[in-house]
């Protein structure tokens, strides 16, 4: 079912929705950009439809709504562990198809991998519904079509901005009631990107053998990559974290255990006591990351981890491109050209 809804009317619906849901969307954050005086498009709670930025890609993904950069797992009081209260609000997030598909990858790790479920992620996940944002022609560095992540039907509402109104598709009956009384109906189905400017050549029959390990192509990254980890932090599918305990300065008896985002590109990711570490240069780390996104996640779960959002290529201060890397891997490997 679809409706044409005037912006003011839609904002009234949004007010009603916000009684039940926290609504997150990409917004323009003034002065938050990487350089003085620049802005950043990022996720924040919204109260008006006009705040939603449709014509740019967010720098960071929507994953932080469910998997926070820093999250307190426990508070310690004397010798007790206390889990922080879990927020009870339902969440609605404006997301693009690649990012909706990225949540499926996070679900795989946090919920399905191994016999235990990550309760912090899962409890939020159960409260989340998606509002699908369309991408028009797509953006710089996007390659979702090649990854098969350009489309999705895992959404509750589709909202398309138009001249003076919002075109709405209500797919999830939970939202029907909010749109009762609006009778300016229209046919609306999602339009997905069908062609990107960038294509990626996925190598077939790859195996992490000595050919891949000794491929000279990795050395380039040892020279160029500074190990800043930004490619991991912006990635909607990166799920690694490190535990961190802290105690409060004013009271030694209390403190907390946190988990913080970790990056396989940054020093320390594999360090063990006794000075042992693995993948000591950036080339080896690039290999580990690329193989995880395009090979071993697939081997374990049956589909690629990367959703082709291009954020890692957008952010890299050294202009390192994961797409170029994979294409070079393809042309220099036996299964390649």
């Amino acid at each position: 079912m679809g409706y044409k809804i005037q912006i003011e009317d839609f904002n009234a619906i949004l007010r009603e929705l916000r009684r039940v849901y926290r609504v997150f969307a990409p917004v323009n954050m003034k002065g938050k950009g990487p350089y003085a005086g620049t802005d950043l498009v990022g996720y924040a709670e919204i109260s008006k439809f006009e705040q939603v930025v449709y014509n740019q890609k967010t720098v960071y993904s929507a994953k932080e709504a469910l998997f926070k950069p820093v999250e307190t797992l426990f508070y310690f009081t004397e010798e007790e562990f206390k889990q922080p209260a879990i927020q009870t609000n339902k969440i609605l997030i404006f997301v693009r198809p690649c990012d909706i598909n990225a949540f499926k990858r996070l679900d795989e790790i946090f919920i399905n991998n191994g016999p235990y479920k990550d309760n912090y992620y899962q409890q939020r996940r159960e409260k989340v519904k998606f509002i699908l944002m369309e991408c028009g022609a797509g953006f710089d560095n996007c390659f979702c079509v090649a990854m098969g992540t350009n489309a999705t039907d895992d959404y509750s509402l589709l909202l398309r901005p138009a001249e003076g109104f919002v075109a709405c598709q209500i797919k999830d009956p939970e939202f029907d009631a909010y749109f009762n009384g609006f009778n300016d109906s229209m046919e609306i189905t999602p339009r997905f990107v069908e062609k990107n400017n960038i294509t990626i050549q996925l190598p077939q029959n790859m195996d992490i053998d000595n050919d891949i390990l000794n491929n000279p192509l990795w050395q380039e990254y040892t020279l160029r990559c500074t190990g800043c980890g930004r490619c991991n932090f912006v990635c909607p599918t990166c799920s690694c974290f490190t535990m961190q305990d802290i105690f409060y300065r004013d009271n030694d008896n209390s403190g907390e255990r946190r988990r913080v985002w970790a990056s396989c590109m940054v020093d320390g990711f594999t360090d063990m006591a006794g000075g042992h570490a693995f993948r000591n240069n950036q080339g080896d780390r690039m290999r580990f990351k690329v193989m995880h996104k395009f090979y071993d996640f697939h081997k374990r779960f049956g589909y690629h981890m990367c959703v082709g959002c291009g954020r890692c290529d957008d952010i890299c201060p050294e202009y390192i491109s994961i797409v170029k890397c994979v294409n070079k891997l393809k042309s220099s490997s036996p299964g390649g050209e």
Partner: protein
Amino acid sequence: MTVNPYLPQSAKIISVKPQTAVDYTFIMESEIKPTSGQFVEVSLPKVGECPISVSDFGEGWFEMTIRRVGKVTNVLHQLKVGDVIFVRGPYGNGFLMDKYRGKEVVVAAGGTGLAPVKSMLNRSREYGGLTLLAGFKSPADVLFPDQLKMWEQDFNVILTVDRGDDNWHGNVGLITQYVKSLQLAKPDEVEVIVVGPPLMMKFTVQEFLGLGVPEKNITVSFERKMCCGIGKCGHCKIDDTYVCLEGPVFNYTRAKGLID
């Protein structure tokens, strides 16, 4: 409420025994039910967590042998009998005990690698025959000296140190050279377990292969950085394998393909 897999359980220290200047053995009162080769995440609120192998276990207790190397282990070594710490687990796969029943078994352990195999050495009667090759850096690093004496009564023990001192009258040299001198009647039927630092494992496995022990008869145990122990944090992953879930114990046929 959903289960919180990160929530540890309390465990009371019922014995602390220094083995060397830096390795202490702790016996814990606890209801967890580990198997040989599994590990737990030891938790000290406000300090941190770290993975530690279960070195022995029984009804209502388990044992860990912990080397003092950093944040968590330094604080652990200051604790006394009666103190309470926290643990979660047991995690990991452990040794497949059925594989060894009635078989000729050779265990090669380097340094703290002796801890994860201790409990299976205590079950020597279940095997057809047992040889332990234990190597340490120096006489001061030898773990479980009392246990070693008892084991010498029950099965073949070859103890060696990299460097001896004036009071050392035993073997000197690396484990690898003692593997060479093993008299294996039927090398293709021997089951081998190798646990220790990465390079020790690599070269020791090569020696056993050289003696004609088939790859599928060799088992190794890996150590990797681990933050969660339950397949979430990503630190222990090699290729598509999570060492905390599918390991830390691996058959060599699989282990040899795991390239970091």
